[in-house]
């Protein structure tokens, strides 16, 4: 093989890196928005984008990287996402490893643009963590409406810092949204109270509803852990069936991101033990429903989940 071609590559390499060294990194940053026009805000999940859009009103263009029904585990960035990321002046993400590697990288972007991990707004002692792995928190904070309300203030402050002219609007919208979320929180509590105390057991496929159960007094039993690498073991199915039969649970739930098959095997195993359990419906776990539908908003998603759970367990 010709040596000269490879030597060319070897010689060219350091100069390429040297030229990146002086580069400030990603273009944009707050200064880039002095031109006027709406702020470009980029959220990772639909839940975050919905909250941010309510606070920003007409003063920002809020986009979500992960569309309806996209499991954050399965999200793959597209070429357009690279440019959306560059164009955004404010990036909002969940944190706690929900976004995996993307989360690490967003954290590093903090040097060149405003980046906010919403889970940072939640006091550490209110985060769930597995007893054996301290520090590796459960990321599904949005299912506790009271916790999710804590993210509103920091988003409004970040927007106000980027666009001080509309700070009053952001503050007003944020206050209104906080009232709405407090209402929603109280509504969920009232609905859950319709279920007799002994029946408050939520059986789902993967462990996304821990915060929901803790806040609203429902025991959560999940077939799988948080990681999707390990498939449900026979032992897991037996453990879940044991709980269902013992507590006479009426319905269990499927999620869009986990195969229906696993939950169906639980239904059959219960039938074999002489206990009839139905599938109570599909819950939204890591993504919102389609845009333009009721489930396409944070509020609609919570209402859908709670109505399905209460309707089936009552």
């Amino acid at each position, binding site marked *: *093989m*010709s*040596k000269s*071609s*490879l*030597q060319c*590559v*070897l010689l060219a*390499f350091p100069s*390429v*890196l040297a*030229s*990146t*060294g002086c*580069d*400030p*990194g*990603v*273009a944009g940053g707050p200064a880039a928005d002095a031109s006027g026009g709406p702020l470009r805000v980029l959220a990772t999940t639909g839940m975050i984008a919905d909250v941010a859009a309510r606070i920003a009103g007409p003063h920002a263009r809020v986009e979500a990287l992960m569309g309806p029904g996209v499991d954050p*585990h*399965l999200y*793959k*960035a*597209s*070429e*357009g*996402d*690279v*440019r959306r*990321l*560059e164009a955004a002046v404010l990036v909002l993400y969940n944190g706690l*490893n929900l976004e*995996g*590697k*993307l989360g*690490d*990288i*967003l954290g*590093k*972007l903090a*040097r060149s643009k405003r980046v906010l991990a919403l889970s940072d707004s939640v006091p550490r002692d209110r985060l769930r963590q*597995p007893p*054996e*792995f301290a*520090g*590796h928190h459960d*990321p599904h904070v949005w299912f506790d409406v009271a916790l999710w309300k804590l993210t509103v203030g920091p988003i409004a402050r970040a927007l106000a810092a980027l666009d001080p002219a509309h700070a009053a609007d952001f503050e007003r919208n944020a206050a209104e949204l906080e009232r709405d979320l407090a209402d929603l929180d109280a509504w969920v509590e009232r609905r859950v109270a319709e279920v007799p105390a002994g029946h408050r057991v939520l059986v789902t496929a993967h*462990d996304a509803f821990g915060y929901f159960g803790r806040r609203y007094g429902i025991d959560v039993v999940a077939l*799988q*852990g*948080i*990681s*999707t*690498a*390990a*498939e449900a*073991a026979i032992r897991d199915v037996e453990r879940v069936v044991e709980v269902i039969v013992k507590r006479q649970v009426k319905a269990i739930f499927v999620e869009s991101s986990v195969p229906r098959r696993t939950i169906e095997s639980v239904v059959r195993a219960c039938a074999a033990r002489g206990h009839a359990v139905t599938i109570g419906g599909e819950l939204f776990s890591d993504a919102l429903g389609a845009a333009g539908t009721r489930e396409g908003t944070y509020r609609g998603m919570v209402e859908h989940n709670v109505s399905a759970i209460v309707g089936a367990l009552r």
Partner: protein
Amino acid sequence: MSSTVVILLVGSFVAASCALVGSFLVLRRLALLGDAISHAVLPGIVVAFLLTGSRAPLPMVLGAGCLGVFTVFLVEVLNRSRRLQEDASIGVVFPALFSVGVILVSSLAAQVDLDTDCVLYGDIAYAPSDVLDVGGVPIGPKALWTTGAALVVDALLVLLLYKELKVVSFDPALASSIGFSPVLVHYLLMAAVSLTVVASFESVGSILVVGMLVVPPATAYLLTERLGVMLLLAVAIGVGSSAAGYAFARWYECSIGGAMAAAAGLAFVASALASPRHGLLARYLKHRRLGARLAGHLVLLHLSGRAAEGERRGLGPRDLEARFRWGRVRTARVLGRLEAQGLIEPAAAGLRITPAGERAVEQAGTAALADRR
């Protein structure tokens, strides 16, 4: 440096380093080693997590790197035992390691989100955003450094050990007889493969690496029979596919790594169709040429037999059609060609063989007899 330039450079570095080491994998029938490593690293990241309690990139890459080297080592040990084929050696090793990883996750770390997709595999889309710091000074995208370093290592390996690698790939017995250890050279190559693969997984994700390791070398393999040319072609095809894939991803707004790997796939299809020696098109044309020559010979033999009987009135196209069951169009084409070559000529009631035709039959007969001897 704009994100487009970073992505194109990282894509080209990955494509080039994968093409260099992947060419030897394809030649040694170990092409699926990259895919195997992508699964086999799971226990490495679980153990790294259990030891450090962290899901940060460095322990994950180190854990994965150790398992990558261990995977190629086990595959090589099985290969050298001569009891298994290369594909079966790979097929035995990686499910074994992957299943150990699944058992570890489900029994020890089910409450922590720990899979290769979320803690190890990067995405080339993030390459421009992930800037490396040295003492607080940004020194450019990390992926550019890691994939660039892998390319330098692989290029040095191939440049310095070119002759040795060539002999080892084609004739291991000769290699040991002329005085260097094929085992050592081979392990150096395999170590380079696993480091390239794991470092690239962390920067650009699995599909791009697994694709670039196999497809450009396989494409180049169809186009040439010389190792040096194959290596250069594989690098060129890989780099070209990254650029074309990026353009497609930009136009269609889709996954960049996926589009780059798909472009390499298209390059393979194109060369499988159009390669000058092994291509389907070349083979089809050759087949047709041979078929036409054979048909001509059959007609000449047929007419020649008649001449020997003294039957010189000629046979019509109808008689030949009935004799060979070729249909009118094909018969006309075969006869037209023979007539143009002056091997047959019109006669009273049809066609007859010319003296030149008789000579051609004789020559073909002698050639066939020579073949048989």
